[in-house]
C-alpha cells in the first residue's frame, strides 16, 4: 500500500458549504425541559442519582456510571428533576428508553466548580479519573468512554496519538468549526492526552478540504513541539479509526486487534475539546457542537447545544424547517440513524441533525445484484460486499463471515455506489445482529450444559456416598466399635446440606 492513503473509499458530495463558513451559534434559548437518556454511551445504562423533585445545579452529577463501559451524566442546566421515565429515544427503533427529565429554572446556575491546579502537573492516573468523572465519551459518534480508552492506552507503548479531525461524513462541519474557533483549546486537550498516555508524538489529521481549520490548528500548535498538523486526502471513510491510522502511519490494525497493538491511539477533536474543558476548568460534558443541516433546514448552522435539548429546539434555532424532510437523521448521511421523533433529545454522540429532501436521499426500490463489483472496489476494508449480502440474505452467516462480514465496519461505501440500490448495510446489520444472538445463545447453552453436568456429577457423588454409607451400616454389626457409627451420620448430614 505504498503511497495509497486508503483502499477503496468513495467521494460523496460533501455539502459542507451549507454550514462551513458560518460561526457556531452559542446562545441558544434555554430549553424548558431537558431529556437525558440514561444510555448515551457504549455500555449499560447509568444509574440515576437524583429523585423526582430534586433541585439540581448546572454540572451536577445526576446519574452514575453503571459499569465498565458506562459513563456519568450531569445536569446541563439548573432546575428541577420533574420525571425519570421512558421517552422516545433518539434511536431508529423508536423504542422508549428511561431518561431523567429536568425542568430548567432559567437561571443556568453552575455548581461550585473546583479550583484546579495545572493538569499537566498531575499524575496520568488522576487525570484519567477526572476524565471519567466528567462523563466524556467518544464525541465522533462512537460514544466509547474516553477514560477507558486512555487507561487502555496507558498499558501500551503509544508512539502516535492521532487527533481525528478528518470529519469525512457529508454535511457535518461541527469538528471543522470547532477546530477553527477553538484551536487553542484543542491543542491544550491534545497535550493533556499526550501527557496521560505518554505518547511520543501527536498528529492532528485533517482532510485537505478544511484549509481554515488546518491553518488555525497549525498556528495554535506552533509553540509546542511534537504536535504535527497533517492533511489527509478527502475520501470517505477517512474518519474511521482504522482507515485514518492507515493513512497517517501506513500501518494496518491487525484483524481482531486494537489500534493500541500497533502503538496508536485515536481521539476525535470533539473529545479532545471536552477533555480540555474537564481538566482545565472542571466542567463535565454537558454540551456539544451539533451541525444542523440538510435541504429542509431554513438556515443551516452549527449550534452549541446542551445535552438533552430537544431536536425541535435546535432546528428552530436554525430557522426551522422549510419542507417536510424525507429523512430526519442524527449523524451524517453515510452512517447516521433515523430519529423517530423530532422531540427526541440531543445526546452526547450526536454530531449532526440532518433534515434531508427526497432528492438528497435518492432512495430507490432495490433491484437484483448485477455483480458489477463496484462495492468490492469501494470497500475500504477489502471485503466482498456482494457475496456477503448474497449469503446473509439466505442466513448463511458462516460464508458471509468468510467473505468479510467479520471485518465490516458498516461504513456504507458499498451501498452508496450500488447501482441496484441494494440496502447492503441493512443486510450486514441484520447478519451481525443474528450472529451476536447466536453467540449469546451458545454461551447460554454452554452454561446450562455445564450446570447440568455439575448437577449430574453431584448426584453421582451422593449416590456413591449413600452406597458407601449403606455398606458401612451393614458391616457395622459384624464388626465391633461404636466409633464408626458417627461417620455415616455425618456424611448424611453433609448430603442434605448440599442438596
Amino acid at each position, binding site marked *: 500500500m505504498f503511497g495509497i492513503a486508503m483502499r477503496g473509499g468513495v467521494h460523496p458530495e460533501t455539502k459542507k458549504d451549507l454550514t462551513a463558513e458560518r460561526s457556531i451559534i452559542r446562545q441558544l434559548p434555554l430549553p424548558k425541559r431537558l431529556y437525558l437518556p440514561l444510555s448515551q454511551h457504549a455500555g449499560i445504562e447509568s444509574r440515576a442519582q437524583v429523585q423526582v423533585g430534586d433541585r439540581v445545579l448546572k454540572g451536577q452529577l445526576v446519574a452514575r456510571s453503571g459499569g465498565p463501559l458506562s459513563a456519568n451524566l450531569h445536569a446541563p442546566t439548573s432546575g428541577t428533576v420533574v420525571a425519570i421515565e421512558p421517552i422516545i429515544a433518539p434511536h431508529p427503533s423508536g423504542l422508549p428508553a428511561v431518561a431523567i427529565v429536568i425542568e430548567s429554572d432559567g437561571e443556568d446556575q453552575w455548581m461550585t466548580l473546583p479550583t484546579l491546579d495545572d493538569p499537566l502537573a498531575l499524575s496520568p492516573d488522576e487525570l484519567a479519573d477526572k476524565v471519567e468523572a466528567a462523563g466524556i465519551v467518544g464525541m465522533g459518534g462512537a460514544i466509547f468512554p474516553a477514560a477507558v480508552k486512555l487507561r487502555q492506552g496507558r498499558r501500551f507503548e503509544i508512539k502516535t496519538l492521532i487527533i481525528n479531525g478528518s470529519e469525512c461524513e457529508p454535511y457535518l462541519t461541527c469538528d471543522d468549526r470547532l477546530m477553527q474557533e477553538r484551536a487553542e483549546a484543542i491543542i491544550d486537550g491534545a497535550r493533556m492526552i499526550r501527557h496521560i498516555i505518554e505518547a511520543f508524538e501527536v498528529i492532528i489529521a485533517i482532510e485537505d478540504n478544511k484549509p481554515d481549520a488546518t491553518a488555525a490548528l497549525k498556528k495554535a500548535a506552533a509553540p509546542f513541539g511534537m504536535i504535527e498538523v497533517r492533511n489527509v486526502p478527502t475520501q470517505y471513510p477517512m474518519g474511521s479509526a482504522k482507515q485514518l491510522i492507515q493513512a497517517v502511519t501506513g500501518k494496518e490494525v491487525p484483524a481482531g486487534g486494537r489500534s493500541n497493538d500497533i502503538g496508536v491511539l485515536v481521539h476525535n477533536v470533539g473529545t479532545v475539546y471536552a477533555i480540555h474543558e474537564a481538566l482545565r476548568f472542571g466542567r463535565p460534558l454537558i454540551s456539544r457542537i451539533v451541525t444542523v443541516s440538510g435541504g429542509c433546514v431554513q438556515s443551516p448552522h452549527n449550534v452549541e447545544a446542551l445535552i438533552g435539548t430537544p431536536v425541535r429546539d435546535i432546528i428552530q434555532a436554525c430557522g426551522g424547517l422549510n419542507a417536510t424532510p424525507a429523512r430526519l437523521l442524527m449523524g451524517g448521511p453515510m452512517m447516521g440513524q433515523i430519529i423517530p421523533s423530532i422531540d427526541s433529545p440531543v445526546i452526547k454522540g450526536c454530531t449532526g441533525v440532518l433534515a434531508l429532501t427526497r432528492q438528497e436521499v435518492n432512495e430507490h426500490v432495490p433491484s437484483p445484484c448485477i455483480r458489477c463489483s463496484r462495492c468490492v472496489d469501494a470497500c475500504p476494508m477489502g471485503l466482498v460486499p456482494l457475496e456477503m449480502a448474497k449469503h446473509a440474505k439466505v442466513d448463511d452467516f458462516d460464508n458471509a463471515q468468510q467473505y468479510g462480514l467479520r471485518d465490516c465496519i458498516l461504513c456504507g461505501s458499498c451501498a*452508496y455506489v450500488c447501482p441496484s440500490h441494494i440496502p447492503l448495510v441493512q443486510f450486514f446489520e441484520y447478519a451481525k445482529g443474528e450472529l451476536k444472538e447466536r453467540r449469546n445463545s451458545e454461551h447460554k447453552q454452554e452454561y446450562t450444559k455445564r450446570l447440568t453436568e455439575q448437577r449430574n456429577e453431584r448426584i453421582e457423588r451422593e449416590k456413591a456416598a449413600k452406597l458407601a454409607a449403606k455398606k458401612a451400616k451393614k458391616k457395622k454389626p459384624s464388626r465391633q466399635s461404636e466409633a464408626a457409627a458417627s461417620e455415616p451420620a455425618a456424611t448424611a448430614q453433609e448430603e442434605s446440606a448440599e442438596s
Partner: protein
Amino acid sequence: MNAIRESVHRAAPYAHDRSSVDRIMLQVCLALTPATLFGFYLFGLPAILTFVSICLAAIATEAICLLLQGQSISRLRDASALLTGWLLAMSMPPWCPWWLCLGAGFFAIAIGKHLYGGIGQNVFNPAMLARVALLISFPVQMTTWVQVTPLGSEQAPGLLQSLAIFFEQQSIPDGYTGATLLGAAKAAANGGSAISELVADNYSLTQSFLGNTLGSLGETSELLILLGGLWLLRRRIISWHIPVAMLGSTLLLSGLFYMVSHAQYLSPWYHLTSGGVMLGAFFIATDYVTSPSSTAGKLIFGAGCGLVMYVIRAWGGFPEAVGFAVLFMNALTPLIDRVVKPRAYGRDQRGNPIKNVSARKAS
C-alpha cells in the same frame, strides 16, 4: 403503511452516487453505437433487419419471461435485454434469415438468462451462449459471410431485395459471400499451405483494423470498438483488467508461436485485429454478471479468455473462438471468485490476522 414501515427501518447510508443499472446498460449501448452504425454501412439493409429483429426478439422474450414469473414488466427499463440482444447481433453474421434472428434473441434471454433465475443469476454470458449454440446447430447459416456492400453502393441490395433475403424468398446471390481472414487461415493450416503467403496476398492489416472487411455484423472495425471500449474505461463502467489481460495474453501467445513458425501461425497483429477479440475483450468478457469480482480474479479471467481463444484458433476445429473462450472462463468464474478474494484490511492474503509486535508494555 407497510411500505412506510419498511422505509423507516431502512439502514444508512441515506445518500447515493446516483448510478443506476439502466444508466450503465445504456452507456454500454452508446459505446457500441459507432461500430454498429459502421456495420450497418458496410452490410446494408439486410444487416439492419438482422440487428433490429434480434434486439426486438430479445426484448420480447424478456417481457414474456418477466410476465411468466409474475414480475413487473417495468423491469424491462433496466435495458439489460436490449444490451444482450445488441451484443448478440454484433457477433452474428450480417445477413441472417429471420428465423435465426428470432431464435438467437429467444435463446439468449430465455435459456441463457431466465432459466438461471434472471438478471444477475446466469452463469454464462447469454449472448455468447446463444451464438455458440446456433453456431453448432446451424453451421452453414452462422458462417455465411457476405462481402462488404456499403450502403449506397451498386451491389447494395435495395429494400425489397433485402426483405426477400431476410425472409429467405431469395438466396444470397453467388459471389456475395467469402471467407474471413481467420477462416481462410484455418483452411490453409488444415490444407498444409503457408498461412503467411495467403494472408499477405489477400488481406490487409490496416483494413482489418479499420474494419473494411467481411465478418460479423459489428465486429469488423477493431478501431471503433476500441474507441468505444476506451470511453467505457474512462466512464469507469468497466475496469482495465479484463481487456488488458485478454489482449495481452493473446498478443503474447500469438507472438510466441509466430516467432516459432511464420508459415504455420498467423501474425499477432492479425489475431488482434480479426474476429471478435476486441469486442470480446471490452464488451463481452467484461460482462459483470459472468466475470469475477476481484481485480486479481479479473486478470486471471481475462488471461484465460485470451489463452483459450488462441488455443482454439490455432489448433481447434473452429476458426474463431471468442465465444467458446468466454463461456469456458464463465464456467470458472465461481471458482475464481471463491479462491481469489481481495486481501482484507488487517489480514494477510489467506485471511489470517496480520502479525505484529504488540506494543503492550511489559508489566
